[in-house]
């Protein structure tokens, strides 16, 4: 078997048994990174760094001192600040920015022995569902429709992360999920994408998009790898006031394979108008798989689902408009000179931000403005609380909830691009969970009629990632998703 096809769990075993070295494993991935450069999955490649990380890992392995991710080469979404390594958020405005600090989550991964292949491309400031808004160019998915060679989007905003893992460039990737930015690309590229509970992973050192929604997570090829990554990433961080002071479970140990008696909710509100029949069918199949494994389906209501998208598109831009105020050309990144400070701000921000970012800053500024705050932002916050209450009520009778991850498969570059609202609809199934701060995972469950991956989403109670992973693993086993992107064949 090719080294690049290994899962983290398999590589861990192989490294432990000295069947190959971390250096060999990393070299194989560095080579894959070069070969697949056309995907534009990375903004910054750091092969030298990856090889140094691997050399260190080999020393630890030789000493019998291997840690959880020893020698595993990863792609890091370029929203995580990495000390001394260019960090761009895929925006022109962060030109040349090399942080003097390392984000908490990446630091935790390095402390477990992982290596860094590079900084993965994304939608600018993580705003987008197709990875076409990056200043560094669009990411292309390694997938193609059957008999159609037009390039497809990998989903977004963690599109570079998804493309890298799907194309077997990285064994796993770090992503962030604000409204679906891990789960939707995972669904589009046939990967497992986990968004943990808000507060499970520290946000310190992640370039902020919408602070009350942003959460780090992973893209992997298996549920077990997802569990391994989550354990390494999680934990309380005193530098993030919103991070939870809870112990971190051994998520791999939670994968017992037994979901007998588990009650899973099926919310009828997720049957949205215009959703392709094949997604509805896949959802039914998923229900059958879980039932066959001994779990019990329960029809539930999540009545406020239809308000989630508009609520999200008020709260997220509002927070973003404030979070992005710091990019003013004064202290770091791009500066376009002007005759006055106001001119400098205007010129810098006009040139530094792309259209989608500007659109959201305008929306956010508008909804927070005097006279509009109550009607938009305050009302959205109330609806958000009601949506969270809706889920809470549902979780009184069920242990997890099963839904599709996205209302469609990946689309071609150029499709849906002229209508931002149509693009926003991609997040219809992922956004409610983000608003409620709950954990959710996307598991590849099948292929569309065009041969593209489709994912199912398992949602859990706050901080109950263990049950989410257990149910996800059961789906994964039943789905037996073995399809590979055509570029690999």
């Amino acid at each position: 078997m090719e080294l690049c096809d290994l899962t983290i769990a398999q590589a861990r075993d192989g490294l432990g048994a000295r069947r190959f070295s971390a250096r060999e494993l990393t070299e194989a991935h560095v080579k894959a990174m070069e070969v697949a450069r056309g995907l534009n999955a990375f903004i910054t490649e750091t092969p030298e760094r990856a090889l140094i990380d691997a050399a260190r890992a080999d020393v630890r392995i030789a000493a019998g001192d291997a840690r959880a991710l020893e020698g595993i080469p990863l792609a890091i979404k370029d929203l995580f600040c990495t000390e001394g390594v260019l960090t761009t958020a895929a925006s022109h405005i962060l030109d040349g920015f090399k942080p003097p600090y390392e984000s908490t989550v990446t630091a935790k991964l390095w402390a477990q022995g992982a290596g860094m292949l590079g900084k993965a491309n994304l939608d600018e400031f993580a705003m987008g569902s197709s990875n076409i808004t990056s200043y560094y160019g669009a990411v292309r998915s390694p997938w193609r429709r059957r008999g159609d060679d037009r390039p497809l989007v990998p989903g977004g905003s963690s599109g570079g992360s998804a493309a890298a893992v799907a194309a077997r460039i990285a064994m796993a990737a770090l992503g962030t999920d604000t409204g679906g930015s891990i789960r939707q690309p995972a669904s589009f590229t046939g990967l497992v994408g986990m968004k943990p509970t808000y507060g499970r992973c520290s946000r310190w050192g992640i370039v902020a998009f919408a602070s009350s929604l942003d959460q780090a997570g992973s893209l992997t090829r298996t549920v077990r790898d997802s569990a391994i990554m989550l354990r390494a990433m999680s934990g309380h961080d005193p530098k993030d006031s919103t991070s939870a002071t809870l112990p971190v479970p051994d998520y791999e140990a939670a994968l017992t394979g037994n979901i007998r008696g588990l009650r899973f909710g099926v919310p009828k509100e997720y049957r949205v108008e215009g959703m392709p029949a094949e997604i509805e069918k896949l959802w039914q199949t998923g229900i059958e798989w879980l039932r066959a494994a001994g779990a019990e389906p329960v029809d539930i209501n999540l009545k406020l689902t239809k308000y989630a998208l508009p609520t999200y598109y008020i709260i997220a831009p509002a927070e973003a408009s404030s979070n992005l105020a710091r990019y003013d050309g004064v202290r770091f990144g791009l500066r376009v000179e002007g005759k006055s400070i106001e001119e400098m701000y205007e010129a810098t921000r006009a040139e530094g931000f792309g259209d989608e970012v500007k659109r959201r800053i305008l929306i956010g500024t508008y909804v927070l403005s005097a006279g509009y705050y109550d009607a938009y932002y305050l009302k959205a916050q109330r609806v958000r609380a009601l949506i969270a209450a809706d889920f809470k009520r549902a979780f009184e009778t069920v242990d997890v909830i099963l839904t599709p991850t996205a209302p469609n498969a990946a689309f071609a570059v150029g499709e849906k691009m002229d209508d931002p609202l149509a693009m926003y609809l991609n997040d219809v199934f992922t956004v409610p969970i983000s608003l409620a701060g709950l954990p959710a995972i996307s598991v590849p469950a099948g292929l569309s009629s065009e041969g593209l991956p489709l994912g199912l989403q398992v949602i859990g109670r706050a901080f109950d990632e263990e049950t989410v992973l257990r149910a996800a693993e059961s789906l994964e086993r039943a789905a037996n998703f073995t399809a590979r992107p055509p570029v690999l064949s």
Partner: protein
Amino acid sequence: MALIEGKTGNWEVVIGLEVHAQVVSRSKLFSGAATGFGAEPNSQVSPVDAAFPGMLPVINRFCVEQAVKTGIGIEGKVNPTSVFDRKNYFYADLPAGYQISQFTRPIVSGGSIALDLPEGRSRTIGVTRLHLEQDAGKSLHDQHPNLTYVDLNRAGTALMEIVSEPELRSAEEAGAYLRKLRTILRYLGTCDGNMEEGSLRCDANVSVRKPGAPLGTRCEIKNVNSIRFAMLAIDYEARRQIDLIEEGGVVKQETRLFDSARGVTRPMRSKEQAHDYRYFPDPDLLPLVLDPAEIERLRAAMPELPDRKKERFVQDYKLTPYDAGVLVSERQTADFFERVAKGRDARAAANWVTGELFGLLNKAGKGIEQSPVSADAIGALLDLIADNTVSGRTAKDVFAEMFETGKDAAAIVEAKGLRQVTDSGAIEAAVDRVIAEQPEKVAEFRAGKDKLFGYFVGQVMKATGGKANPGTLNELLKKKLSG
């Protein structure tokens, strides 16, 4: 009520003050960076203060405690839950593009401050709220002909904004409010009150009206950096508004700057140019929840505050309210006085501290904490007066020397032979001698010229080198002259 005379009659000025008090704390409100005054530019800045990408604020619990103590000190209600909001605006010395402040739910609601006014008058002024917020950095416009430099040392430092009700009615009252607030803050050790270094700053909202009329349109005056300037600015602004209205003009709501060099206020921005701050709860911070037990612990550990102390001084030490007021204006002075007064005549102690000591300190331009004479040393001098070792008159000379040389009272008395003569035999001999030497004056006195008694006292004192105990002298002289 102090009214201002205008051409059309009397006017009342209505003032509300917003005070920004820098919290005494070694580190900033949301970062671990240091807060020392006068450091090299940009040497006390963490990536959080400079709003680098991905940086997050973490509340400094010590600053919260300081705000709670201040809230208790101004008799406000400490709110068990308060919320930090973002106040959004662009400025080069505001790195994040927003200031973290408290808008709808401050840490302290309500409160009051009792003003000490001349002639023993007093007024109580309501405090609307106290909230915690970050300070901005400093823009330095004078370092380069066409560039502005930014110093972020102050960025992120904790401030308490203390807002008064619009209940002040004169510049004098505004001055008394600021003095009293500063005294309270210093007693609590929550703000050093140093206006020159900018750790206490004040904005004044000023409007005028005919007595009994509804409130007029207010102007906010910024940049008043001393109590004296605040009073000057208010007086100027009130007069400006009155003149404007009386000449048929209308006061526009605006923000004005006080120009201390010219003693005038001038427009800074109009209401139309005012920022829309787009306040919303800061999603990086959880609501600030205080444990009621913690609030009670702080309440129990509160020092005695000036009003209570003054009351106690009047009651326990029988001081006049005026003297008590002077003594409690600074905690160190009050402590100094109490140390002098302990086990002694308190009124004498008060007189010596506010009279002799303050006199010499003022002349030397020193504060009480720099006094060359300690409280115990003054106490020892008072003991020498009480046990008749020296007279009060002599004691003043002794004190001047103590102040000068730092020597203790007993040593000076001994070295200079200033010990008062209390031996009645020696005094009697001197009295006898004076009477014998001045038969004609004695005759005049005995014929009814009472005024001469003082003359004889002086003569006897002279004869004893000023050391005779005045009581004994008086007694003996009276007896001998009448006999």
